[in-house]
């Protein structure tokens, strides 16, 4: 191939805008083939995907609802990745938080919301952090790569949920594998009438705001970034690497745990087997599309929420399976990651200046 890469001095400023647009355009071009294979016109499909969700107030609110869990997991993954801690276990950490919320939600019957809600949130965060702790300790004490350990705990968490729902927590009335409903005191308040938008959305925005503040404005955040960018230089400068990684891992797990609380207390009001549709993994997509910044995470989460709602409505109207939404999401991630290379490198023909 008569092409090669040449390093740029600095990423062109316009890329902040043109790159996401190019990524989205390329993605839709590539996935158009699949839509055609399903027997539908790509234009109709993408109209359903992108425009229909914005066409009514209810739908826009649904987009926000859909983006709520991945705002949390996107933030969780972004913080971990920023520190160079590859937390692929957000899914399991979310489920731990959901389990905690389902249990605590039954204990707080009759409590005032000002006491019950913080309890649920804190409990879920602690559960998520606890699930994140073993791999983090293994990394910090023994140097064992956290990718595989966090990953393997995901199916274990799912089995835990199954074990509880098929056993002691099986709803005694319906006999379905879902937990009994949480107490009204534990429910996240509805934010807008006749919509599913709940307090969890505001909580997610608050978490993002705090995350932004900590990573960009505090000494802790600078240390975290230094450790992620250059662990050797950070260690040399006196930064305690182990402490930073542990902190990032636990914060990440805790935020993912809150995502679980949000789904239980805001949407399902009980623990179910389908409480998470891969939110932990989607969080990785959101974090990457958002370039690991809190603001980027917000935009990416809203966009993916849009695609998700669009996928649902498209599958009802057209003959296209709703998985198309996930296909688009995954393709967008790969395309973005490929295009990001262009920020650092220019493609030139061999032999030309």
């Amino acid at each position, binding site marked *: 191939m008569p092409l090669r890469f040449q390093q740029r001095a600095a990423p062109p400023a316009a890329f902040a805008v043109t790159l996401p647009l190019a990524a989205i355009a390329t993605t839709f071009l590539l996935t158009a083939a699949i839509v055609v294979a399903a027997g539908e016109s790509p234009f109709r499909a993408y109209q359903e995907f992108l425009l229909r969700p914005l066409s009514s107030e209810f739908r826009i609110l649904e987009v926000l609802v859909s983006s709520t869990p991945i705002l949390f997991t996107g933030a969780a993954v972004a913080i971990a990745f920023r520190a160079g801690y590859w937390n692929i276990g957000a899914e399991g950490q979310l489920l731990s938080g959901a389990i905690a919320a389902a249990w605590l939600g039954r204990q707080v019957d009759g409590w005032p919301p000002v006491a019950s809600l913080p309890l649920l949130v804190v409990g879920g965060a602690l559960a998520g952090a606890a699930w994140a702790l073993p791999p983090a300790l293994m990394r910090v004490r023994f140097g064992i790569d956290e990718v595989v350990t966090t990953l393997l705990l995901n199916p274990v968490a799912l089995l835990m949920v199954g074990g509880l729902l098929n056993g002691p927590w099986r709803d005694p009335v319906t006999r379905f594998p879902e937990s009994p409903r949480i107490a009204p005191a534990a429910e996240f308040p509805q934010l807008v009438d006749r919509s599913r938008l709940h307090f969890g959305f505001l909580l997610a925005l608050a978490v993002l705001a705090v995350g932004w503040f900590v990573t960009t*404005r*505090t*000494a802790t955040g600078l240390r975290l970034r230094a450790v992620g*960018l250059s662990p050797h230089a950070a260690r040399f400068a006196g930064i305690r690497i182990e402490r930073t990684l542990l902190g990032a891992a636990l914060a990440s797990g805790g935020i993912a745990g809150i995502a679980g609380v949000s789904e239980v207390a805001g949407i399902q009001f009980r623990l179910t087997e389908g409480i998470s549709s891969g939110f932990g993994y989607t969080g990785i997509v959101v974090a990457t599309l958002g370039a690991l910044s809190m603001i980027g995470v917000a935009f990416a989460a809203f966009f993916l929420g849009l695609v998700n709602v669009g996928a649902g409505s498209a599958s009802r109207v057209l003959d296209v399976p709703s998985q198309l939404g996930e296909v688009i999401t995954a393709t967008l991630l790969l395309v973005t990651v490929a295009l990001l290379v262009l920020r650092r490198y220019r493609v030139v023909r061999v032999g030309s200046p």
Partner: protein
Amino acid sequence: MRGIVKRFGDLVANDGVDFTLASGTIHALLGENGAGKTTLMRILYGLALPDAGEILVDGRRVEIRSPSDAIAAGIGMVTQHFSLVAPMTVAENVALGDEGGFRLDRRGARAKVVKASERVGIAVRPDARVATLSVGEQQRVEIVKALSRDCRVLILDEPTAVLVPQQVEALFNALRRLRDQGLAVVFISHKLREVTAISDEVTVLRRGRVEGTVTTRTTDERELGRMMVGRPMTGVARDDERVPGEVVLRVERLSVADGSALPAVRDISLEVRSGEILGVAGVSGNGQTELVEVLSGMRVPSAGTVVVGNVDVTGQPPARVTAAGVGRIPEDRHASVVRDLSVAYNLVLEDLDAYRRGPVLDEGRIRRTAHDLIDRFDIRAGPADLVGTLSGGNVQKVLLARVLARRPKLLVVAQPTQGLDVGATEYVRGQLLAQRGAGAAVLLVSEELEELLALADRLAVMYEGTIVGEFDRAEVDVDRLGLLMAGIRAGG
């Protein structure tokens, strides 16, 4: 090579370079660090692609896009930082890339190794794992590997950096032998003395351009130095002798294990007083790196103590070491700064607690400090520039500024001028002398003997983890130093 042009962003590494090489000659490529010598030869060997220009072998144009093209054209290269796969054996390394078939023929590879080493007269053990070999032995493996491909051109990039004077002579003899067999040798160096000793012809590069090509016989060091730098080279001047003050650093019976059978550092004791520079001489790989790592807080020793002032910092992490008044200039400067953070953040990174109000960073104070340090230390960059975009010399200045701003009582410095051009080198050496003048104690580890001879008040020689000799400045004898560095004790 004709009209070679190579740019890296705004930097023009090679600016229309012509280079002609004849068989049966040793042709030196001379220039200071950053002049473009390595870049030019990497282009010849296919590790880099030129933006313009052509390469001709025996008068015919050849396309060299990768090392395998270069090898096919009969070109071999021994890179500056060795290109050997550490866990593999010598024979496997020599076979790599030239295995001769699908099946891996280990015995055939061994035979090839023996044959090539006989040709050049150096001994290599085919079944030894490269990780166990000394630096000098590894270099010999690299040469044997290049020769085993029947090359007609052999490029050596700064080959003497890792050798003691006696080994340099052995290498030169081997090169002369190869030249007499008809091989064309390119000898990249920035050391005038060696260039005049070994080469038949010299091409001098300065700032990416050819200053001239001369026959070595007809020129001298002074003229070559002038061509190299564009002005007569001055050194740094030491001022009058000082009387050293009290002991600042006391290392007692320090040992450092490194996972292999022999400890990297064995039972070392030394002292450095305020107002003096103790130079640690030795070929790389004799424990200096581990010693510096312990003194920097980056490694825990297996035995012994390190005391700075009256604070025991043995085994303490970097934060405690700097708090005890130690300033560290590390060997690998690019790995010791965070390239994707700004100059300002890097300048305050060792001392973040002083730059925050509560949990929040005091950006204003950080910026003011950065401006101040950029001024005082002549850093050619703005506070918001990413350190990764800075030249080697400016990165070193950032590290110096960061360290010296805290007025350390002890400086631990390793290879401070490696890879720097003459201007930056003189600046750094000047700073070290100034610190000495201001009363700091300096421990200077360097592979460049001339640097140590220029700067140090006392010299210690390290070999295989122990100190095999200590000298005052006045009693230094270069030949004896060379023998000690090679492990040959006095009286032998």
